[in-house]
């Protein structure tokens, strides 16, 4: 069964920072296999490739786990920080 992560994120509570991404991504990163790993590893499915192989990254919906940082810092992930105070995911249950 295919998975729709956006629907799952839709039930979560977020305080979104509309203007500043807390993660900086190198969308032109040349190694496709490195990009593929990040695309598959992000639990929120925020890294995606379109049919032309262009990388898209949507920081809204980030669960702030740090997987992409550990996996690809210095490669696909240029910089990683938590969102500013009060912003980002807010687990009601956790």
């Amino acid at each position, binding site marked *: 069964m295919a998975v729709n992560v956006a629907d799952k994120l839709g*039930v979560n509570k977020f305080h979104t920072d509309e203007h500043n991404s807390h993660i900086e991504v190198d969308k032109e990163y040349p190694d496709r296999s490195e990009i593929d790993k990040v695309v*598959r590893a992000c639990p929120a499915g925020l890294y995606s490739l379109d049919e032309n192989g262009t990388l898209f990254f949507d920081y809204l919906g980030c669960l702030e*786990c740090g997987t992409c940082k*550990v996996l690809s810092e210095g490669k696909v992930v240029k910089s990683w920080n938590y969102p500013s105070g009060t912003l980002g995911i807010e687990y009601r249950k956790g």
Partner: protein
Amino acid sequence: MSEERFDCIIVGGGLAGLTAAYLLAGEGLETLLVEKGNYSGAKNMTGGRLYCHSFEKVIPGFARNAELERRIVKERLTTAEGTMEYASAGVSAPEGESYTVLRGVFDKWLAGQAEENGAMLVCGVRVDDLISRDGKVCGVVAGDEEMEADVVILADGVNSLLAQKLGFKPPIGQSQVTVGAKELIGLSEDVINQRFNVGSDEGVAWMFSGCGDVCDGFLYTNKDSVSVGVTMMVEDIRNTENSVPQMLEDFKNSAEIAPLLKGGKLIEYSAHLIPEGGYDMIPKLYGDGVLVIGDAAALCANLGFTLRGMDLAVESGRLAAQTVVAAKENGDFSADGLSGYQAALEDSFVMPCMKGTEACLAAVKAGGFKDDPIVTFSKVMRETQIG
């Protein structure tokens, strides 16, 4: 720029940080805890269960008042060979009793206790950096605010950007952490009781070793919800075509799990890293004016049949508080004055648990799984006192 001064500043309002804050404030120290979420627990999640023994030392009898889910009475372990079920050791073993918890709820409760004890909690503030003078940590920087203290406790979680900035630990390796993704599925209390054959306050902890090509699975019952999720060593993403969300979806839809979740409604979707690098991953734990505790200190042990992190976090928070109280009495917050923290961890169950995982697991395997393995694990850990 405003300047305030405290005896102790704690960065991070998870279990380790809150435990330290609760105890330090209780000893009369001016204690400030800074949490980036809007409340303690807002950024925290667990599978998961809390083993009571360490927190019992912090607030004796806490289970009567705390926001807990269900007391674990039944354990299941699924491997390639099939599923084993055994009764939880419960209070019959020193580290046996456990409860399922939801961190957004439990941490909030504990934060209230810490505040009642006199700790000052500031939420919604991200600490960006530490103030260091002559190699001694003496405060924190958050935006353009600076706050100073005799000692800073880093309880900023598995990623601990601050411990990395301080040079206490290298960047996390891909084989040192697993990523956990979890769904919280709402089901009525009665349905949970029926499907898992338990009483109203009784719960089940279920670990799946190798539920997919590269992941493990877990399921815990809460009061009126079930926590179901998968974990995967981050480096293993190269060994699969699957995505992490797909792994969770496949696990949920497996023949063993799907009927148990039928009719349930998704309440929340969460993800977190889990430090599973063992003893070798533990960073430098103390320095001039600073201590590192909880997940930030990588204090987490995956025992296969169970995963322990929260009880280690609590113990590290308690021992850090004890160390700071002694340092305050001696007026010595240097690395030397704080070195008792590491010694106390060695003397506690924490370091033996971190060091002895393999030896203890061999004993558990040899003994079979007729009883809760935590009994054998604890026994071997104490007998060998590896350390």
